[in-house]
C-alpha cells in the first residue's frame, strides 16, 4: 500500500514535470536538433512508465512506523526546522546548544547531561569550525556582544 501511495504521488510529480517539459519549455532560438525540452521529455516518459509499473506491482506492503517512533521522528523534524530557522538569527553557538540539547533530551538523555552536551557541542563546534578550520559559521547574537 505504502508503495502504491508513493508511486501515485511520484507519478503526480512526474506528470507535472512532464507537462512542463512538453508544453512550457522552449528555447527562444536554437540551432541544435535537441533543445532544452527534449531530455526532460525523455526522462518524464521513462519515469512515468517505471512509476506505473510500481503502482501495478508494488512490493513493500506497509510503512511499518509505530506511533511512538513516529512521534519521535516528527519531533526531531520540528527540532531540525527550528534549528535551521534559528541558525543565522541566533548564531551558531546558541542555536546549536538549543538543538543538540533538546535533540539528546528527545532521544533519552537526562536533563543535566543534555544541557552540558548542548552547550559543549555549540562552543566546541564553533571553536573548531570557525576558529581552527576557518569555516564560515554565523556568529549571530554572541558576535554582537564581542
Amino acid at each position, binding site marked *: 500500500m*505504502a508503495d502504491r501511495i508513493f508511486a501515485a504521488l*511520484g507519478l503526480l510529480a*512526474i506528470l507535472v*514535470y512532464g507537462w*512542463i517539459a512538453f508544453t512550457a*519549455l*522552449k*528555447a*527562444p532560438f*536554437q540551432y*541544435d*536538433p*535537441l*533543445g*532544452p525540452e*527534449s*531530455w*526532460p521529455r525523455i*526522462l*518524464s516518459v*521513462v*519515469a512515468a512508465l*517505471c512509476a506505473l*509499473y*510500481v503502482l501495478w506491482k508494488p*512490493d*513493500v506492503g506497509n*510503512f*511499518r*512506523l*509505530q506511533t*511512538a*517512533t513516529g512521534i*519521535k*521522528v516528527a519531533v*526531531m*523534524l520540528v527540532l*531540525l*526546522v527550528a*534549528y*535551521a530557522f534559528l*541558525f*543565522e538569527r541566533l548564531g551558531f553557538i546558541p542555536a*546549536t546548544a538549543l*538543538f*543538540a540539547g533538546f*535533540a*539528546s533530551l528527545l*532521544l*533519552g*538523555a537526562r536533563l543535566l547531561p*543534555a544541557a552540558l*552536551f548542548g552547550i559543549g*557541542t555549540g562552543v566546541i*563546534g564553533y571553536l573548531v*569550525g570557525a576558529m581552527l*578550520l576557518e*569555516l*564560515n*559559521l554565523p556568529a549571530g547574537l554572541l558576535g554582537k556582544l564581542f
Partner: protein
Amino acid sequence: MDAVLAGLGQGFAVALDPINLALVLAGCFFGTLIGALPGIGPINGVAILLPIAYSLGLPPESALILLAGIYYGAEYGGRISSILLNVPGDAGAVMSTLDGNPLAKRGEAGRALSLSAVASFIGGTLAVVLMTLFAPLLAAFAVTFSPADYVALMVFAFTSLASLVGKNPVKTLLAAVMGLMIASIGIDANTGVVRFTFGSHDLMAGIDFLVIVIGLFGMAELIHLVEAQATGKLKVLDIGKSFVSWADIIRVRWVVLRSSLIGFFIGVLPGTGASVASAVTYGTEKRLAGESGKDFGTGDIRGLAAPEAANNASAGGAMIPMLTLGIPGSGTTAILLGALLLFNITPGPVMFQQRPEIAWGLIASMYIGNIALLVINLPLVGLFARLLTIPQQYLTPMIAVLAFIGVYSVVGNPFDLYMIIGLGIFGWILRKLEFSLAPVILGVVLGSLFEDNLRRALSISGGDWGILVQSWNSIILYVLAVLVVIVPLWLGRRALKKVA
C-alpha cells in the same frame, strides 16, 4: 609501462608532499572513526565530511586525497561495528558480520579484527596495483570515445545498476531517473532556458550537489537512526588479547587473493560496489570450501577474510571507471566524482593527460593510505572500538550539527538548511520503501553529462538518432547492457530449477 612508472613517480611526488601526506593520514583516521560509528556506513561518512573538506580551501588534488582517505578509512572502520556489535554500517559490511561476530562472541574479537585488517590491506593494495596498471590503458582507449559512445556507456552503466543493485530493478531505475530529473533543475547551460525552478531564485543554479548528498545521505541517515533507536541497547563485545597469527594468514592466503581479484572486477563494473562484491566472494568461498564450508557462519576465519578483502578491493576497483571514464562505479565514488566537479575538474580520459597530478596523486595516495590504515588499525583498534559505546542520544544530534556546519559553510544560504531537511525526509522514505539511494546520486552526478553527450551526438548527426548505434564501441556497450540484464535473470531461473 614507462609512462606508468613516470606517472606513478609524479604521483608519489604529490602524495608525499607533507601537507598531502598529513591529509591522507587524517582522512584515514577520521574515515575509520566515522566508519566505526554504529550504523554509519562509508557513503554517509563521506557525505557528512565532504562539505567540510570542500570548504577548507584546499587545492583539488589535496581535497580529493583527503576524501579518498576518508572513503578508504570508512570501508575499514565499518568492520569494527560489524564484528563487535553485529551492526553493519552498510550493505557492503553485512557479510563481515556473519563470521566476524561469532568469532568475537567466542572471545576472539582481537583475532577477528586484526585478521580483517590484514585481509582489507591485501585487498586494497592489490586493487591499487591493478588500478595502476589498467587505469591508464582504459583512459587511453576512452579518449577515442565519441559523444554517441558516451551515451551508450551511460546506458550500460544505468542498466547494470538497475539489474545488479537492489531487489527490484524497476525501483532502481526509477531512483536513477529521479536523480537525472533532479539534475535537470536550473538553467540549461546550452540555451540559457530556466527549467523547473518555479520562479525560485534559490533554484536558478540548480540544487547544489553538496546539498543533495548531505540531505539524501546524512540527514536521511539521521532520521533513520532516530527511528531505529527504539530497538534497545546494543552490547559491545570485548576485544580481548587474541591476535591474528601467521598460521591464520597463511591459511587464508588463497581466499584473500581470490576474493581481492573478484572484488576488484566487481568494483570496476559501473554501479556495483562493495555489497555485491562481498556477497559474491562469500558465496564463492563457501562453495569452494566443500565439506568444511559448513563452518561458515559460525566463526570461520575464511568467511571473514573473503568479504573483507573483497570490499576493500572493490572500493579500489570502483575508482577506475570514475577516474578514467568519468562514470562512477559506486554510490560513494559518485560522491567523489561530484566533489571533483565542484572543483571544476571533469574526470575522464583526458584527466590523465591534462591533470596528471590529480589522477596520479590520488593513486599514489591510495598506496600510502593502505599502509597507513594497517598501521593505524592494528594498534588503535581499541580506541576505535570505544567509539561504539558513545550513546546514540549524543551521536545522532552530532550528525545534524556536522551536516549544518558543512552545508552552511560552503554555500552560506539558510535556504539550503531547509533543503537538506526536505531531501532527508525524501531519502528516508525512499529507504523505507526499499529504493536504494546510490542510483539517485549516480543520476544526479551523471545527469548533465548524459544530456550533454546526447545533445552533442545529435548535433553532430544533424538530428539523426541513428548515430547512437553507428560505432563498434557503442554497439558492444549496448550488447553488454542487454547481457547484464539477461544473464542474472537466466542464472536466477537456473538456480530455481536446481532447487525444484
